[in-house]
């Protein structure tokens, strides 16, 4: 790890000029995306700087790479262009795509059997579902999230509901929603019961319905989907009925960006969104709010989401060793706790929740525990080979059903047929 390696031809670049002084250290590039506001980038950069300060043999350049999709494009371009980063945080769902492009390598070869047990084995199993395939570990969970239900306690009290109790089942959510939906004299809704954002990528929160219904959307080999399972159809019908039949959710496609705002402004009494919003809601909600697991049908259930660390192939063994050591450090309990508290992401290891910092935080702010407790019921976010195309197929089907253009069954039957065609070469 501390072996001397000489820097290659890129000395002309400004970065290298800036770090000529450490020309004998192992140089690493680390791309990270940010989906939760400016402070998150500062936290990652600070953690990286702390590590570099404590480990003189390694030099890590933490590079902000835009949104998740921008970061994906940047990392893939750099890899195809022959100069990949050594490590990058990218969406957990990109695993199959990255394997297919042959740009990443499993972590297993760079850890001892003991570390494999204690480190890789120490993450929540539901986060590992999206990180391992074919018995190899390609992703290390880092900025992981899961959707939860936020509710406005003031609005619950006003509607005559117990402000401390969130709906636990689908039927309860409809009942509560009907009581919470307020109309003015002319019939316009001034407060909706619930808001489940669906624009752009409806599949993710939809998994918060299809999982409780008892369905799993794709197999763990990433080559078969299960879109037209009767239980998936039932889940979609429930989602559509929230607006169409029960009238407790704004009809049509619902945007993600303004969703927290709508919650703060009292336009909706409940919202489903990621735990990545926890810090934002805590800071900005002008009323008492509660956080609950998503309501159950046959079972409880929700998808996981967010980003993993990936190890890129095209680098020296020294770089890979140094990269793995860094990933081990930044996902260790203390660092995971700092990261989780700063952003609201779910600390991905049980031992991170045992640290003093985390205990103090959850004592002060118990809702942070809900996401962790939900992990027991959580499943992998939809991820397959040709992930972009397959996910888009499902998104289109969901959007068509939400817009009322197709029935839930027709839309999902068509999506399944398309997905079958796309995934055939991978079986």
């Amino acid at each position: 790890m501390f072996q001397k390696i000489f820097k290659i031809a890129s000395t002309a670049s400004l970065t290298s000029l800036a770090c000529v002084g450490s020309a004998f250290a192992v140089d690493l590039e680390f791309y990270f995306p940010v989906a939760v506001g400016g402070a998150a980038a500062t936290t990652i950069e600070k953690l990286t700087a702390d590590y570099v300060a404590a480990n003189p043999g390694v030099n890590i350049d933490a590079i902000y790479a835009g949104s998740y999709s921008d970061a994906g494009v940047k990392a893939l371009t750099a890899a195809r262009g022959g100069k990949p980063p050594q490590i990058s945080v990218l969406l957990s769902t990109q695993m199959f795509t990255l394997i297919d492009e042959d740009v990443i390598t499993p972590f297993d070869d760079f850890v001892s059997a003991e570390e494999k047990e204690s480190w890789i084995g120490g993450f929540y199993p539901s986060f590992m579902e999206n990180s391992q395939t074919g018995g190899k570990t390609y992703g290390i969970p880092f900025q992981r999230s899961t959707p939860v239900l936020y509710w406005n306690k003031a609005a619950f009290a006003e509607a005559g509901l117990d402000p401390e109790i969130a709906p636990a089942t689908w039927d309860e959510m409809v009942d509560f929603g009907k009581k919470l939906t307020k109309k003015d004299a002319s019939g316009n809704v001034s407060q909706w019961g619930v808001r489940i954002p669906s624009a752009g990528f409806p599949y993710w929160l939809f998994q918060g319905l299809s999982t409780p219904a008892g369905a799993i959307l794709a197999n763990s080999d990433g080559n078969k989907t299960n879109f037209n399972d009767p239980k998936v159809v039932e889940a979609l019908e429930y989602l559509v009925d929230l607006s169409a039949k029960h009238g407790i959710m704004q009809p049509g496609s619902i945007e993600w960006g303004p969703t927290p705002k709508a919650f703060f402004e009292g336009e909706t009494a409940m919202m489903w969104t990621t735990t990545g919003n926890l810090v934002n809601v805590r800071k900005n909600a002008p009323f008492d709010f509660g956080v609950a697991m998503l309501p159950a049908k046959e079972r409880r259930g929700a998808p996981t989401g967010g980003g993993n660390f990936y190890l890129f192939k095209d680098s020296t063994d020294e770089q890979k060793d140094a990269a793995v050591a860094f990933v081990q450090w930044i996902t260790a309990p203390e660092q995971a706790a700092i990261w989780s508290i700063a952003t609201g992401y779910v600390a991905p290891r049980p031992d991170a929740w045992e640290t003093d910092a985390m205990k103090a935080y959850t004592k002060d702010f118990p809702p942070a525990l809900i996401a962790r407790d939900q992990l027991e019921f959580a499943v992998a976010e939809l991820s397959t080979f040709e992930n972009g195309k397959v996910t888009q197929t499902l998104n289109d089907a969901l959007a068509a059903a939400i817009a009322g253009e197709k029935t839930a069954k027709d839309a999902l039957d068509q999506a399944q047929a398309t997905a079958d065609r796309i995934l055939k070469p991978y079986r």
Partner: protein
Amino acid sequence: MSSKALKLPQTIDKFRSFNFDQSLSTFAAWCLAILWLSPLVYAVWTAFHPSEFETRFDLFAPLTLQNFVQAWNEAPFARYFLNTIILVAGIVAAQFFLCTLAAYAFARFTFPGRNILFTLVLLQLLVMPDILIVQNYQTMRSLGLIDTIAAIGLPYIASGFGIFLLRQTFMTVPKELDEAARVEGCSFLGVLWRVYIPLAKPTYLAYGLVSVSHHWNNFVWPLIITNSVETRPLTVGLSIFAVTDSGIQWSVINAATLMTSGPLLIAFLLFQRQFVQSFVRAGIK
């Protein structure tokens, strides 16, 4: 009686057609202007008010500059401004130089393979730059230029559009002027400098504007090829505010947007008349 009856509809017709046409196009112009202005007005409104007023209109809402302060502090905008200005100035200067020489050659000289070469230049207009990202990345890597401002600009400086536009302009310059200058003893480059370039000023202005606004706004390529604060332009810096997971803070993002697009907006308002005229003269519509 009959003459009156004939005359009357005519005047009405004239009156009607004149007014109707005029008012319709004025109305359409207003509609377009309002449509174009509304996001800008919203941006200004939210940027100068606290975030509680993002979705509520209140004429007497308190004004604040806090959003600008917050945006300015969340990213090193001063550095990003400098980078963007260096980048845009560099690209435009290099484009003017290269495109002028190439256009002059294509417009006024005959040499073997001229038409084939010009066709190749035109073909460049058909290729979307996004397709070439990986290839460009490899080229920049072999030049050792990854993460430099030069790498952001290099793929754009041999602009097919610029060459085409300037060639067409140079072709309209009367041959007599060229010949007169030659008789007076001007060299080839002297003719270019003294005759062609001065006559093509409106084209330069129009092309310069298109180029500046394009590169000021370019996002994907700069994001991919740069890694550090010292090289990144404004657009990449701005993207840090566009976060979906924690809900979008419109007031801060709009303050940042106004800051980054401000110089272009002000420049356009100042030079509006010249720009519009040069567009008309250069025939870009």
